[in-house]
């Protein structure tokens, strides 16, 4: 890949807020038409990185280019090409959904009729047509988030920044949001999304950059990262607790490591690899006649990822970081 194909490139980004150093030298790169997942716990610096790339903040050191333009010196050109869905909805609560979208279209120099058409299209697409003429104040959290995403897509941006797009959405809406993101990418957009969930990054991203305390601690494909942090875990709860032993034996046969753990009462869990672990387990349980009330495949949680990568648990509060920096 030539550097021409890199739509987002950042090197050595540093940003301080008073005594807190939110970013201490972050490198990022995203190729055209791909999704980068920026994974990190609370206070890792995800939002700060996104805001610098979206020209809302300036970096204290390092540089970043979006679509070939330096975000510090050519902010206006960068803004031509980006759409930002921030962590907190950036819509005008006193305007209706439609008025919000039309206003943005007008600010992007679309004509009146074209603006109204674009707004209607997006409202339809995001299932907001019925609520289009209500003020955004009356929207639920999920509706506001959708309106916010719609607002950032008005100008059909080449590059889309999504800061925790699914936080606060129920599981069904979360899947819908994933579909939207996939279709944007299918249409040629480049996406940088931040998330606190490995499964989300795994489902959407071509590459994942893990940051913690303002530093990149891993950069890999989802597969590579999963190899490092230990892939998936299979959890099974036999409906008849007396058959726990038997179930454990079956699981032992599909597991990558022989250890069958019992994290909760009546639930067995084993590390597995490959796509056939689940069907193989189901087949063996069925032929042994063991009924199950729970059967699930999990990716490691962010905590587990961090534990593997750094040897310590992720700092979830900002005070820990502050103390460390000070």
């Amino acid at each position, binding site marked *: 890949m030539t550097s021409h194909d890199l739509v987002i490139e950042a090197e050595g980004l540093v940003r301080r807020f008073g005594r807190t150093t939110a970013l201490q030298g972050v490198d990022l790169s995203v190729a055209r038409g791909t999704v980068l997942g920026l994974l990190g716990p609370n206070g890792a610096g995800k939002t700060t990185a996104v805001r610098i790339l*979206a*020209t*809302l903040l300036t970096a204290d050191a390092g540089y970043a280019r979006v*679509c*070939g333009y330096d975000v510090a010196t050519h902010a*206006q*050109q960068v*803004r*031509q*090409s*980006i*759409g*930002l869905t*921030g962590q*907190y*909805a*950036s*819509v*005008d*609560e*006193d*305007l209706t959904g439609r*008025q919000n979208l039309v*206003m*943005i279209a*007008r*600010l*992007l*120099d*679309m*004509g009146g009729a*074209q603006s109204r058409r*674009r707004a209607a*299209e*997006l409202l*339809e*697409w*995001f*299932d907001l047509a019925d609520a289009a003429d209500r*003020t955004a104040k009356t929207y639920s959290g999920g509706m506001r988030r*959708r309106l*916010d995403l719609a*607002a*950032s*897509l008005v*100008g*059909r*941006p*080449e590059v889309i920044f999504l800061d925790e797009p699914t936080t606060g959405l129920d599981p069904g*809406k979360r899947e*819908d*949001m994933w*579909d*939207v993101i996939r*279709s*944007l990418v299918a*249409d*040629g*957009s480049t996406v940088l999304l931040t998330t606190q969930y490995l499964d989300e990054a795994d489902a959407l991203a071509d590459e994942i950059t893990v940051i913690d305390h303002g530093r990149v601690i891993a950069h890999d494909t989802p597969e590579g990262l999963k190899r490092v942090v230990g892939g998936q875990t299979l959890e099974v709860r036999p409906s008849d607790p007396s058959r726990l032993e038997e179930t454990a034996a079956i699981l032992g046969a599909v597991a990558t490591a022989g250890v069958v753990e019992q994290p909760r009462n009546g639930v067995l869990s084993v590390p597995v690899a490959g796509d056939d672990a689940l069907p193989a387990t189901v087949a063996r349980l069925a032929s042994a006649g063991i009924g199950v009330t729970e059967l699930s495949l999990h990716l490691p949680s962010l905590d587990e990822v961090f534990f593997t990568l750094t040897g310590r648990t992720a700092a979830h509060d900002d005070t820990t970081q502050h103390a460390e920096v000070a």
Partner: protein
Amino acid sequence: MTLDLTTKPRVRPVSGTGPHAVDGASRRPLPLVRHSLTLAKRSLIKTWRTPEALIDVTLQPIIFLVIFVYIFGGAVSGSTSGYLQYLLPGILAQTIAQGAIAIGVNLNTDLEKGIFDRFRSLPIARSAPLVGAVIGDVARYVIVTVSTLATGYVMGFRIHTNLAQAIAGCLLAVLFALSLSWVSVFVGMKVRTSGAVQGIMFLIVMPLSFASNVFVPTSSLPGWMQGFVNVNPLTHLVAAMRGLFQGDPLGNHVWWTLAWCAGFVAVFLPLAMRAYRRKV
């Protein structure tokens, strides 16, 4: 959300020219003017939606006119009707100047909201959201002017010049408020809380409206105060309006008022913009 893929707008694969150019949105001239007007419309919608925010500026001139004319009119000027003729331009100037306080207060709270992040990520002039908000406030000033004049008319106030001059007087008042709003916007950008903006602006507008010719002729004030009263921009505005409404001698009052307006804009618009850039 149900995704109906058939109606899904396609995000077109875009070439290096940027997506907004793709959609036939040519670079039309005067982007700052266009974007500011779009954002002024946003302010108008908000004003329209919350008419209760206009109550203070519409009721205050009515209450002030009634109180001052019927309580002090006899004592100050010998007749209530004569005092009404004298007082109305003053009350209009005072209220419209107070009306300019609101914009700083509103922008101060607005700035904390996410929508300003959105504006900052769009390829528009940085100043457009502020300029748009100021322009949108014209509606409030027109409402103040109309409600004050209407109340005055009911109480017996009459224009003694002609329509053109009366309109010129009203426009001068609106222009004054627009220029003064930049002071308010500047304070709104500089000060942390909206309550403080309100307080500071009140401290500026209060002396302007009382140490002036609004209620009594300048000549009746103590000598040491006359120096201030004679340079007070509100004095010039009120004198100019008295000339344009009643045919009083105009002198240089219109020019002084316009000079003050130009001064407010020349000094406080750049200061406000600088404070806005710093803040975000």
